């Protein structure tokens, strides 16, 4: 089946549903190739489980190329595993050694309840966006795209913030389960563009209010989120959001 020479011990969080308790279960896997992605290693394990008649492990994934933000495994105490700047699906087994024991858990946060095994509910992020993570322009209202020149540095900075994939690793790694990095990335993107300035005040207030309502914790500037973010979203965004929030409160 697989052609590799790595043998590993996996300890994986199994939980039937949000109503039941979960626990770590140990599974050995053999003949893993260093060229496999972490999720392909899970495919091998699931295939083994199916052959044995055991229920395979449920985990979220879709694009398998680091862009959809769906994969979400907490690997040896770190969201998306040991390598910086990659998502779980982009992590390859060459980052591990033969004989390693790997512990895999779901994202843990009050605002991200476990659905099953390694799958969690991140719909809180969508609800935050629906409170202001947009520009209120109806289809058909737009002027010519080059009418407002945007300095390249601003456009690039907005793009860097907009590169967030909404995976939630920042929340999972934060000891307070704060969603500040995620929320600030969207606020920054729109604050940096002339089109986004019109609604800036309402946006930051409404999004922050929803973030609090969802039960995300406060930011105490530990910076763990920036380190674990697979897309390099910078802490500067949080500083910018704090400024936006401050200004919004003065204005009202």
């Amino acid at each position, binding site marked *: 089946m697989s*052609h590799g020479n790595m043998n590993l011990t996996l300890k994986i969080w199994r939980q039937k*549903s949000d109503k039941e308790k979960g626990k770590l279960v140990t599974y050995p896997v053999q003949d893993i*190739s260093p*060229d496999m*992605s972490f*999720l*392909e290693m899970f495919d*091998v394990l699931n*295939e083994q489980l*199916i*052959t044995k*008649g*055991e*229920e*395979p492990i*449920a985990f979220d*994934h*879709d*694009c*398998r*190329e680091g*862009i*959809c*933000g*769906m994969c979400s495994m907490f690997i040896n105490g770190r969201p998306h595993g040991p390598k910086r*700047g990659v998502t779980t699906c*982009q992590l*390859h087994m060459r980052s591990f050694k033969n004989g390693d024991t790997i512990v895999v858990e779901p994202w843990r946060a009050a605002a991200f309840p476990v*659905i*099953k095994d390694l*799958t969690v509910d*991140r*719909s809180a992020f*969508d609800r935050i*966006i*629906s409170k202001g*993570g947009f*520009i*209120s*322009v*109806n*289809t058909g*209202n*737009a002027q010519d*795209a*080059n009418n407002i*020149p*945007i300095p*390249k540095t601003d*456009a*690039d900075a*907005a*793009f860097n913030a*907009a*590169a967030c*994939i909404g995976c939630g690793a920042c929340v999972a790694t934060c000891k307070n389960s704060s969603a500040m990095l995620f929320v600030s990335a969207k606020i920054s*993107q729109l604050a940096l*563009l002339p*089109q*986004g300035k019109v609604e800036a005040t309402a946006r930051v207030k409404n999004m922050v209010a929803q973030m609090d309502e969802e039960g995300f914790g406060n930011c105490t500037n530990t910076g763990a989120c920036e380190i674990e973010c697979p897309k390099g979203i910078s802490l500067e965004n949080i500083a910018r959001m704090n400024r936006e929030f401050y200004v919004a409160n003065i204005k009202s």
Partner: protein
Amino acid sequence: MSKLDSKIPEGALEQKWEKYKSSVALVNPANKRSLEVLVVGSGLAGASAAATLAEMGYKVKCFCFQDSARRAHSIAAQGGINAAKNYQNDGDSTYRLFYDTIKGGDYRAREANVYRLASVSANIIDQCVASGVPLAREYGGMLSNRSFGGTQVQRTFYAAGQTGQQLLLGAYSGLQRQVGLGTVEMMSRHEMLDIVNIDGKCRGIIARDLISGKLERHFGHAVLLCTGGYGNVFYLSTNAMGSNVTAAWKAHKKGAFFGNPCFTQIHPTCIPVSGDHQSKLTLMSESLRNDGRIWVPKKQGDTRKANEIPEEERDYYLERRYPAFGNLVPRDVASRAAKERCDAGYGVGTSKMAVYLDFKSAIARYGHTKAVTQGIHNPTAEQLKDFGKQVVEEKYGNLFEMYEQITGENPYQLPMRIYPAVHYTMGGLWVDYNLMTTVPGLYALGEANFSDHGANRLGASALMQGLADGYFVIPYTIGAYLSKEISTKAISTDHEAFVKAEKDAQAIIDRLFAIKGTKSVDHFHKKLGKIMWDKCGMARNEKGLKEAIAEIRALRDEFWKDVRVLGSPNELNPELEKAGRVADFLELGELMCIDALNRSESCGGHFREESQTEEGEALRKDDEFAYVAAWENKGDNNYEIHKEELKFEVIKISQRSYK
């Protein structure tokens, strides 16, 4: 009499859409509030349609199987989106975009649709910029463009190598705004399993709540399928793991004809397969062909490393064969040329099924330019390389990183190894000019329909089509239908048609669990993929296709006898989801082969070995095959073909040449 009426408006090509828009029936605001529209899919097509229809006042529900609308597969598009803005002043126009698209599609698309697409393309860019999409810009603050294959102008807008992500997040933000306003109800982690027809019209869907496993009935005055392409029938493709044909296929079984199912696009530049554990293939965007040069060694079976092969012993075969377009020939041409070289024994890498995509010249060229702009007159070789690398990194950084993560090789130093892979499906549900399928009230948008790309899609045109359909076409064309539905009251989901459709969907689920076989769903999916790739892939012939049909039938029987689905139906169960999808692929695969067998010409991505020129180029047979093959499902895997003749009134149809 043909059952197909394409409903193309009368009049001169350039005026059809303008006239249509000013004469189509409207629905007044009060009536819109009581009209319900179901949008299945939240990719570029679905998100833009759902948001726009909600802004207009319709009551909308939107479905996706991922945990959030933002994760639809459009997110993965890399290279860019076309629009006839002519910002570069290089001679672009609506007509030229229209012409390039028809020619690129090898004259198998409908003129009227493609012209409309080209004419709304510019509005798309305006809309996206207005909604905060950070497209790439020049230092002067204006939008930047790059070139894509099959064209000689620069009309592709982009956001680094993440254009789909940025466009989708733009459409998603518009959608979430409507969700916040209460005009769209978003149903994520829901999978549509069937459509519901009442008195000959589509009136709703059956969907499974993927968390509770419960089947739900949803009513709509109209239903829009924006469910993407079916490339995953090949198992290995550049599509996301969940991409599937289920929604379109179930609609097909309930009356929607399937158009040109065999038209699949094999993308020339993907990272080659590394082993049998492989679960998907990763695209290296076509934009790389702006700067990368494709080559293989001139010597057969050359075992030297790329860097050890001197310039004069390299065969830049695209530049050699197609001097006018060089590395920027359309995808079908580039893919076949790579296959030809590898089959002839010139392939590289351990598998010998790869060619090089080399950035050395680009790095040198950009290095020089940057040194000049920095005022450095005698740059060292090191400086040149560094400067060049910086420019390339700015353009394609994320793609280079992705390549390195997957292969463990540094593409700034060694050329990339690439090979063609399944990428996109031009075929899909047949639709008329209004984007309506052959089931009244059922529409198909985006990659799910067959409409605009003929037999080969040009790069950066799928994003354009998805957003054109959702933002600018359906908002008008749906009025033609819904204006006649204003007196239709919402139908109760206790209606017998809903009850029966739900029962049928349940029966399939029960049957899958009851088999208790010995093999996983993936086992069957991989086998199907191999049959399709070997016999209905880059090159097809009569014998192979006939074998494939027999093999798929046998595999399908085995699946229904021996598949093993564990767990229960009343919970999150990814294996059950996969099983349902693969069951549908096992039917679709056969139809694709039937269609490929029927079309004994070569055109675009469909290459019939029996039909080629002496130089090995695709040979079209316009007298026999200038039609859309729309297949009707007659039950029990029987199909009847209906033909929509393609009339070319503006463009002179000719054998395609990129030489």
